[in-house]
């Protein structure tokens, strides 16, 4: 038992920190969020070429770094701190995890090297139920449909809230066999986003630091070679992918929550009223102490979930991993706590900044908006707590929920 980063993991974290401090400045974030893709393609190329972050989870056999979720989480935390606008989350946390969990050997051999070389990818799964009150974010919410015709599939439907859906080069699409329900009948397909029959509609979003799109499928023809795993049996795998992506998102929220704390503390130390720095008032200090408490608790939760997620990923590849079955619970613990933490901390920071926190000029609003967006994406605190309640009170395993 050693529940702390190894020296190598500290090095990964620290070099990410110094790199992002250079490149993901307020000015850079604001420039990126004004573009159509929502990121700077030169920066992404440099990340892929010089740092190889996109290769973190890719096994060495496919030219990757062969690292794990703990390293991924260390990176995600830093990207959250600096609000990095990039296709990293969609490509790695959805694209690569999908290939690792559900991809066939030939799909892995075809696509992992391409992603290694900088190709972007994302996962489209959420159906109309995700827009219902409180949202529904598990595999059962898939409502795009497919039919099997001879040597190909025909897909129809609308997939909502697809992260970087308009810019990704590769799409992993979840659809269900017509008339199937729940986790049954779900299949995953991997297709180039440019395939005829796919219409991508970028959505204007309150949080401008991460783009979302609706993806509409009109009789999309997909060859059998694009099917990931066994037809109609991908429900549990999709759930696994979502749980992994949930842990990664929680890590990003943790980073954001840390940043707004750091920003607010620095600002209140500078700001003088009544002849003293406002950081000397207990009303401010106690708010900051609560923010730090939430951040540290969130960090413990995220690192725990990262260790569990790593084991789950190993189990998916057939290696023994005693904690693997805890993934749905760990993901919900991390996401519920981090969702609340990032939002509360961003709101508190805005309050501590006072009037300037309400302006477009200061950066607090970027986090305040990102916090709410990330909170609702993949299930908010209440949704994940209900998932936990099912585990604790109803003896239901979250994996089947």
């Amino acid at each position: 038992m050693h529940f702390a980063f190894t020296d190598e993991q500290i090095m990964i974290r620290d070099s990410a920190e110094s790199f992002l401090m250079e490149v993901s400045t307020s000015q850079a974030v604001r420039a990126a969020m004004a573009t159509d893709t929502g990121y700077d393609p030169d920066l992404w190329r440099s990340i892929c070429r010089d740092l190889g972050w996109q290769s973190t989870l890719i096994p060495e056999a496919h030219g990757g770094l062969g690292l794990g979720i703990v390293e991924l989480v260390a990176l995600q935390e830093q990207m959250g701190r600096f609000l990095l606008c990039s296709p990293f989350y969609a490509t790695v946390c959805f694209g690569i995890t999908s290939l690792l969990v559900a991809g066939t050997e030939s799909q892995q051999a075809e696509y992992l090297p391409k992603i290694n070389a900088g190709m972007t990818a994302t996962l489209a799964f959420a159906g109309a139920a995700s827009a219902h009150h409180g949202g529904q974010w598990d595999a059962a919410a898939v409502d795009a449909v497919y039919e099997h015709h001879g040597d190909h599939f025909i897909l129809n439907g609308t997939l909502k809230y697809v992260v970087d859906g308009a810019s990704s080069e590769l799409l992993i699409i979840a659809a269900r066999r017509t008339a199937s329900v729940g986790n049954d009948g779900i299949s995953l397909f991997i297709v180039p986003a440019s395939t005829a029959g796919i219409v991508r509609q970028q959505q204007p979003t309150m949080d401008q630091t991460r783009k979302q799109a609706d993806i509409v499928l009109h009789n999309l023809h997909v060859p059998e070679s694009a099917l990931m795993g066994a037809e109609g049996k991908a429900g549990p795998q999709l759930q696994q992918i979502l749980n992994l992506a949930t842990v990664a998102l929680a890590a990003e929220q943790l980073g954001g929550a840390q940043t707004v704390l750091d920003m607010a503390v620095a600002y209140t130390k500078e700001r003088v009223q009544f002849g003293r720095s406002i950081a000397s008032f207990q009303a401010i200090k106690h708010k900051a102490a609560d923010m730090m408490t939430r951040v540290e608790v969130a960090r413990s939760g995220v690192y725990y979930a990262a260790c569990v997620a790593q084991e789950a990923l190993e189990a998916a590849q057939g290696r023994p991993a005693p904690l693997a079955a805890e993934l749905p619970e760990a993901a919900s613990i991390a996401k519920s706590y981090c969702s609340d933490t990032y939002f509360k901390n961003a709101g508190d920071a805005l309050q501590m900044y006072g009037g300037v926190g309400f302006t477009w000029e200061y950066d607090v609003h970027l986090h305040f908006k990102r916090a709410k967006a990330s909170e609702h994406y993949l299930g908010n605190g209440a949704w994940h707590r209900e998932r936990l309640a099912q585990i604790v009170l109803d003896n239901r395993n979250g994996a089947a929920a």
Partner: protein
Amino acid sequence: MKLSFSAQDEAFRQEVAGWLQANLTGEFAQLKFRGGPGDEHMFQAERQQWERKLAQGGWTCVGWPKQYGGRGCSIEQQVIFFEEYARAGGPGRVGHIGEGLAGPTIIAFGTDAQKQKYLPGIVAGTELWCQGYSEPGAGSDLANVKTRARFDAQKNKWLLNGQKVWTSLAHEADYIFVIARTDPESSAHKGLGFFLLKMDQPGITVRPIQQITGTCEFNEVFFDDAECAADDIVGKPGDGWKVAMGLLGFERGVSTLGQQMQFQNELNEIIAVAKQNGADKNPVLRQRIAKAHAELKIMRYNSLRMLSGQSGSDGSLQKEALIYKLFWATWHRDLGELAMDVMGPESQILEAEPYQLNRLQALYLFTRSDTIYGGTNQIQRNIIAERGLGMPKEPRG
């Protein structure tokens, strides 16, 4: 970063669990899950017997070095011991102040003579300790101690005069460690001494305080020329604050894992009630139970982070340790409220006269103290803001 324990540690876990299973039986079976917070007044004599039983098995002071009679367990093994102890329903330890506070202080700052005199009784579970810190005028402002210690050359003894308050176990303890002012002209944390006194003497009077639960777990302790042998001062006169604060450094959080297992037992009891009375179908209570569950689980990993990490070179606490008291105390107080809300109107009906509370009712009332003792939530927030975030110190009057 790795969560699983080694095979060797898992074998140790089996050993602890096996011993408890074999020994927490017979006359001791009635002690299971008893004597925790809010229940500390129960089975005093039986729990003292149990402390000796533990000692015979070598299960007291497991984290102490072997040369002082401890078991010399690694951090991992200590974690495992406290977890398994609480999992088995091991009763609240009457010896915890000696084992966790007095002993480590004497080991770190005491003379060889003090070590020989006091450590064996703690290890054997035969001598109990209490802590004389707080006073009526020294609560959050702990350094404002007024109890005086004057050296009487004729008697060759220190004589203490003053009053301590909120002294847990004072009515059962054999010894008390006290911070008192050796320099009458001094103020705040200067000019204090750290003294070891026998409780059974004419100069000490113990008066129990009836608390919100109706029971008496802590006391007022009055010193009227109470005597302390010349060589029973730990450190030099004037070093008292340093010695007293040194205690905080010893508590790296190992025993918190056991405390959390007790919390888990309490949460399990609340969940059982919820399933029985239908509260488990109420969406609001489901949210609160899930939140309690999630945060307790994180609490465990926060403690493992505390144990795996490095403290600052100056002995300062890491951030995850700085926030720990505020976090657990608030969580536990909320758990008490959750217990009542899950029980509903039935929470208002007592077990029996006179004012006999069930365990969840006692939990509800007792946990109001968690956010007050050992540094109130407000003091914790000052500490976090000042030491963790470098915000300006409170101006002093």
